[in-house]
């Protein structure tokens, strides 16, 4: 029983992290059809910010690093994506791929290609014992923060005027502009939110691994892609659900695959993605507005 609960906590914690990552991608896709490869480099920027800021009072350090990531996301929008905003989705995808590669190599130029270690988040490393179940504080904080962020995001998107404008832009961008939605502003808000999510997710990633490298964000962004595809491109609800589902699948594969096959876990996860794309090309929760119109 304890084992089962422990696995459940693991799965929820991994799932919460994946959901955060996926939301950051899905949000921008909803607004401007952008699948942002460079999202992983936002995580990386957050990680290096923590390295550079080491020694500061921990909570302040986390806030400053998140602020840096948000600013980086806004700059990304202004410098890289604004010039290609009207291009088709594939061009945007290729642009973000080039940007991601650019930032990785800038990081190599500045910090070198070897990982930098950091003690950020080590304060959360201790485990606590709740009725026989050993849980790390990091997992608990992660679950709480991710839960709060997801709820806040849902409230903003569903209840506020800004959220309504964002949803309108996601539904039909040109129409939304015609009735007075400020495109620049909505997209900037989308990038800022995406940056916020990346900053938080990046912090937890650093706390788990204890080091940052130029390719720090690559595997995380792959996970986020999977979750957004499986969830139905652009669907926020789908992204969150798929993030959690992936967390469970990952832990399940880890536990259930024969020992010899565990190193291939990621191959199995990606095979599930391919299969999903073939069987349900629109994802688990299709965006009705995106159905092909002829």
């Amino acid at each position, binding site marked *: 029983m304890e084992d089962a609960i422990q696995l459940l906590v693991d799965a929820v914690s991994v799932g919460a992290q994946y959901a955060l990552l996926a939301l950051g991608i899905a949000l921008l896709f909803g607004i401007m059809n952008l699948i942002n490869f460079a999202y992983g480099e936002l995580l990386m920027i957050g990680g290096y910010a923590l390295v550079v800021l080491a020694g500061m009072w921990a909570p302040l350090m986390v806030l400053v690093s998140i602020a840096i990531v948000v600013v980086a996301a806004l700059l990304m929008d202004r410098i890289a994506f604004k010039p290609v905003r009207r291009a088709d*989705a594939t061009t945007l995808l*290729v642009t973000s*791929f*080039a940007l991601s590669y650019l930032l990785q190599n800038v990081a190599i130029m500045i910090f070198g290609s070897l990982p930098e270690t950091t003690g950020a988040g080590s304060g959360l490393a201790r485990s606590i014992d709740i009725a026989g179940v050993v849980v790390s504080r990091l997992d608990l904080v992660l679950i709480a923060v991710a839960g709060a962020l997801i709820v806040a995001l849902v409230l903003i998107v569903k209840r506020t005027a800004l959220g309504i404008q964002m949803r309108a832009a996601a539904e039909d961008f040109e129409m939304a502009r015609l009735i007075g939605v400020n495109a620049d502003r909505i997209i900037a808000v989308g990038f800022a939110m995406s940056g916020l999510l990346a900053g938080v997710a990046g912090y937890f990633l650093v706390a788990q691994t204890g080091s940052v490298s130029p390719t720090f964000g690559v595997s995380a962004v792959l996970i986020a892609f999977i979750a957004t595809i499986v969830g139905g491109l652009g669907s926020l609800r789908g992204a969150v659900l798929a993030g959690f589902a992936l967390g469970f699948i990952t832990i399940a594969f880890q536990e259930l695959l024969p020992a010899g096959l565990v190193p291939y876990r990621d191959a199995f996860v990606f095979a599930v993605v391919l299969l999903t*794309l073939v069987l349900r090309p629109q994802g688990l929760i299709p965006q009705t507005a995106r159905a092909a119109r002829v």
Partner: protein
Amino acid sequence: MPRQAPSALPLAAIVVVVALVAGSLSRSSQLDVTTGLVQMCIVIGLYSFVGVTGVFSFGHIGFAAVGAYVAGVLAVPVTQKELLYAELPGWLSNVELDPLVAVLAGALAAGVVAALLAPAFGRVSGLSAALATFAMLVIVYVIARNYEPLTRGTKGMLGVPRETTLWVAAVWAIVFVVVVDLYQNSRIGLQLRAAREDDVAAGAMGARVGVLRGGALILSGLLVGLAGGVYGQLLGSFNPDVFYLDLTFLTLAMLVVGGINSLTGAVIGTLVLTFLAQWLRDLEGALDRPGLTEVCFAILMFAILVLRPSGITGGRELRLRLPRRRRRQETPPPVAEVRPNSRT
């Protein structure tokens, strides 16, 4: 369909000239040009899918990996296999194929992998397809890293015969140019390019878009797999990271810079980036800033995407102009007519 002067001829001539010039250069420059020509094969293979169908792919380097590993393991001399590949299954440890046959076998293996994926591309298109190819790249990479009996994992393949000389690479590049030029002007190629511009209209005119795209994936898988095998026999030793994101980026950048919608673009883009790399590597060494070359390539690619999305060639093919045919000259594909300043 009016006959066109094939663009394969001038492109093959360019390859020959490049090889001739490189032949008179120093050994290390020759090696760089050889690498460039092998990469040209990969880019042409990539073009035969991305350019012809308009479906973007991040996964073709996965086919190159399959080709390289299969061609490599089949060509390693039996005497070295006992030493380096002790865990190989019995029948494989006694096989030593001629390097050329091994490359063809590698191409076939990549073609089989592509055939397994082909049905998927009959169903998904656009962004989902691009992301599916990415999933494929990751799957191949993870398997190459972990299936150590065959691939030696991160320790890397060793002992692959180095058969790819300057002229071997040049001949392959010419073969690729000719094959893909014939293919893109064939009935199937024209249907696919029609579907690239408007798949609904092409479908309404009887093109079976899904089936054709699946077929295009298989052909491009074969080609890129072959190029991968040739690349493996150029390197002699390689690990899974050789066939992952760096090569994916480099080949995509070559295609985008040259022009994604023309075979000429694939050839020109590869040459431009190969020569730029020569110059940038020197600068990088002088300034002691590793990563500089990649940063410049990424900026160049970005500039092309913003200022001239159809690349240096603008989607046009290089053709020999035969005077009496000028009257019937075909208009270039619509993509070529998008002018940078009309996209405000």
